[in-house]
């Protein structure tokens, strides 16, 4: 990686292609790949026998034996280092596990991701060796399940507006007060990563909302956490089996060493946990998308109308082929990002964000189409399509809503240009290492990168420092960047020296590239003829 590396996605906004981040496709070593495959295989075998997703949805709870099964398999310790009793696996094994569980049940994977992806991630990222020794072994064995408690009634997307407080006691301990809402695993966790405002030692009299945020770990046995109250399970549209509850703290005293990371740096802790959690979410989406595809394909082959299987109709084929291409791209981008994380190929925050937005929106479209292909049958509760659709909806909302993520990505992408238009690349960018028969896709990709840079320059020029508020433009630029990152992932995947794709795979990859280029063009075209002013006017009048 060169010294002036911006990160792959960030550099796209500047018209640059940092080929070395994605080429050759970052496959972890053979051993890590084999582990990931074995883990997924084991989970598939177990989940098919042990998990009944329909019953979980109906009962609105995950039975104790499913949780016990996950414990016995050692899943709760998958990414926890071996020295703390875990299996010490990397990101590739983690996303493979997520996809495999999710392929069976979206509620169950939420427990797992709530624990490893966000609940205890902060301890891995910021814990001192003593803290790791104190908390990780019981988390690895699944004796304790973890939850991540950031959101409050008045602090959703604007998590920085939280009001929970932690006040230091004379003996160094902390007293927690406040209420968190919609906490995944709230009803089954006995370890919580909690974010609260702490007094600023430099400015002890500052008003509440000016106090910095710190991160804490609240841990105990489930019935021995005095001061902690857990609300009733929320009745939800989807993920009905996963536990989502309020979590309240009333004069709850926690020890001095419950502080995670530096005092006052809690917001950074939260954002970094979410950045990594987000990547996992795209693997969950891939698992459910594959389930929807499998059902839709089987139905399309089986169901006959007008004397032929409906799979022979062009409009059904459009939906089926689109699904296949999108899932290929979801997988490519999720694996690419996992490889970048495992191999340490530069930063991955915006890359993971692209994966999350792409996968969550594609999944929504895929399960909608799966249901459409299945017709009235799909609408019946007796079949899983409606459950998959209900379960899919939340993905566009949690771990950062897709609007907030677009705002974040657009703003970050534009930042260097707002400072200095000179940051733009002066030469036409090239993507190195592409297989020869993907020269067309490569040429399209390269030219679209230049288009993104031009559009970004226009927005930066038009709005200057106010670009961060030009939301419709930020959305379009983000859509373009998402399409490009995912397209790069598809091209890198088929170009991998280790890959020997057959013609059928190449066709799927080509279709994926073409769909991505089209979605890029749609977003780019909107910048030519914006209804922005008109929309702002109409919306203002509606909500006056």
């Amino acid at each position, binding site marked *: 990686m060169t010294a002036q590396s911006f990160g792959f996605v960030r550099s796209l906004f500047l018209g640059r292609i940092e080929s070395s981040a994605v080429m050759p496709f970052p496959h972890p070593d053979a*051993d890590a790949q*084999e*582990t990931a495959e074995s883990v997924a295989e084991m989970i598939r*075998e*177990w989940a098919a026998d042990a998990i009944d997703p329909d019953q979980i949805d109906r009962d609105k709870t995950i039975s104790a034996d499913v949780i016990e099964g996950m414990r016995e398999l*050692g*899943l709760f*310790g998958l990414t926890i280092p*071996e020295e703390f009793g875990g299996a010490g696996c990397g990101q590739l094994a983690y996303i493979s596990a997520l996809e495999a569980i999710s392929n069976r049940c979206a509620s169950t994977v939420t427990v797992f991701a709530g624990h490893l992806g966000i609940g205890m991630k902060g301890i891995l990222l910021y814990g001192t060796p003593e803290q790791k020794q104190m908390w990780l072994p019981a988390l690895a064995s699944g004796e304790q399940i973890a939850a991540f408690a950031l959101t409050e009634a008045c602090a959703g997307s604007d998590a920085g507006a939280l009001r929970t407080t932690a006040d230091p006691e004379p003996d160094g301990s902390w007293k927690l007060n406040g209420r968190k809402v919609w906490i995944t695993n709230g009803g089954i966790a006995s370890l919580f990563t909690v974010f609260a405002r702490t007094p600023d030692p430099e400015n002890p009299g500052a008003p509440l909302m000016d106090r910095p945020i710190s991160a804490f770990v609240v841990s105990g046995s489930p019935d021995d956490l005095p001061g902690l109250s857990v609300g009733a399970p929320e009745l939800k549209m989807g993920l009905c089996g996963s536990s989502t509850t309020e979590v309240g703290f009333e004069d709850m005293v926690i020890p001095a060493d419950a502080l995670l990371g530096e005092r006052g740096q809690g917001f950074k802790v939260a954002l970094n946990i979410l950045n990594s959690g987000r990547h996992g979410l795209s693997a969950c989406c891939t698992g459910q998308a594959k389930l929807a595809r499998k059902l839709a394909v089987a139905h399309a082959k089986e169901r006959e109308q007008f004397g032929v299987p409906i799979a022979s109709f062009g409009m059904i084929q459009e939906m089926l082929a689109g699904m296949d291409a999108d899932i290929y791209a979801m997988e490519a981008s999720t694996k690419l990002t996992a490889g970048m994380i495992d191999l340490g190929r530069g930063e991955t925050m915006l890359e993971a964000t692209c994966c999350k937005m792409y996968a969550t929106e594609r999944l929504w479209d895929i399960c909608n189409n799966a249901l459409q292909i299945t017709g009235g049958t799909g609408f019946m509760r007796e079949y899983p399509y409606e459950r998959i659709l209900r379960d899919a909806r939340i993905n566009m909302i949690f771990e950062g809503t897709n609007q907030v993520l677009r705002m974040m990505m657009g703003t970050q992408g534009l930042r260097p240009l707002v400072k200095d238009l000179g940051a733009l690349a002066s030469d036409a960018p090239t993507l190195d290492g592409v297989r020869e028969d993907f020269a067309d896709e490569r040429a399209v990709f390269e030219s679209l990168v230049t288009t993104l840079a031009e559009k970004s320059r226009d927005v930066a020029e038009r709005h200057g420092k106010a670009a961060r508020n030009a939301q419709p433009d930020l959305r379009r630029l983000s859509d373009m960047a998402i399409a490009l990152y995912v397209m790069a992932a598809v091209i890198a995947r088929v170009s991998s020296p280790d890959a020997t794709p057959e013609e059928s795979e190449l066709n799927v990859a080509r279709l994926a590239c073409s769909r991505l280029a089209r979605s890029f063009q749609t977003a780019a075209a909107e910048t030519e003829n914006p209804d922005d002013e008109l929309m702002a006017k109409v919306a203002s009048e509606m909500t006056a």
Partner: protein
Amino acid sequence: MNIVACIKRVPMTETQAKVTADGQSLDTSGVEYMTSFYDEIAVEEAVKTKEKLGGEVTVLTIGPSDATKQIRECLAKGSDKGIILTDDAWALRDCRSTAKALAAKVQELGGEVVFAGRQATDRDNASVGPMLATYLGWACVTDVIELELEADKGVAKRESEAGVETYEFSLPAVITCQKDLNEPRYAGLKGIMAAKKKPVEEVPAAEEASQAEVVRVELPPARKEGRVVGEGPDAVEALMTALQTEAKVL
């Protein structure tokens, strides 16, 4: 006890069989593989035997190097070491030449009991187990559904068309495993990680010409579409007639 479990790598159950252009074998392009269903039961019984009587479990297969994946799965489920008798033409071997090569290796290993599946789910010959016992000159009980082993003998129940037979036998012995014998365990993460450190050895399989050769493979004829013979109680008679005269099953 020195325990050996013999496994075969077979196409996944959901594989759609296709015949090659020459009509002599199955087209293996794009086929994914798994450990044969009954062999998983054999491996589980081997590991349970080790847990009860002590000793070591060796997983043995004849196949390509790619069978390492299946061997590792068995190691993750508690076996101790794996041996692949490599033979790229493994799929063309007849039961006899397979059994003979396995027997030579079992002898060399000093095996005291061998577990195998009752049949491999690809060819369904159900012959390698008994043939292996014959080459070794050992006791053999097939289709075992219940087993009690001691250091030098055992009692096995086997399912036959006549009912359940109970055998007493002396060791060494070959046991072929039927469905109800046990419930194979899941590997678990600890097992998967431990399997990485266990040895898998590859040695060329003893050459042994086949005496039986597949000359032609055909897919089963497509099933004829069903026919509704009538509705309600009135249909009973029509159905009986059809079953007697057309299907000739009654």
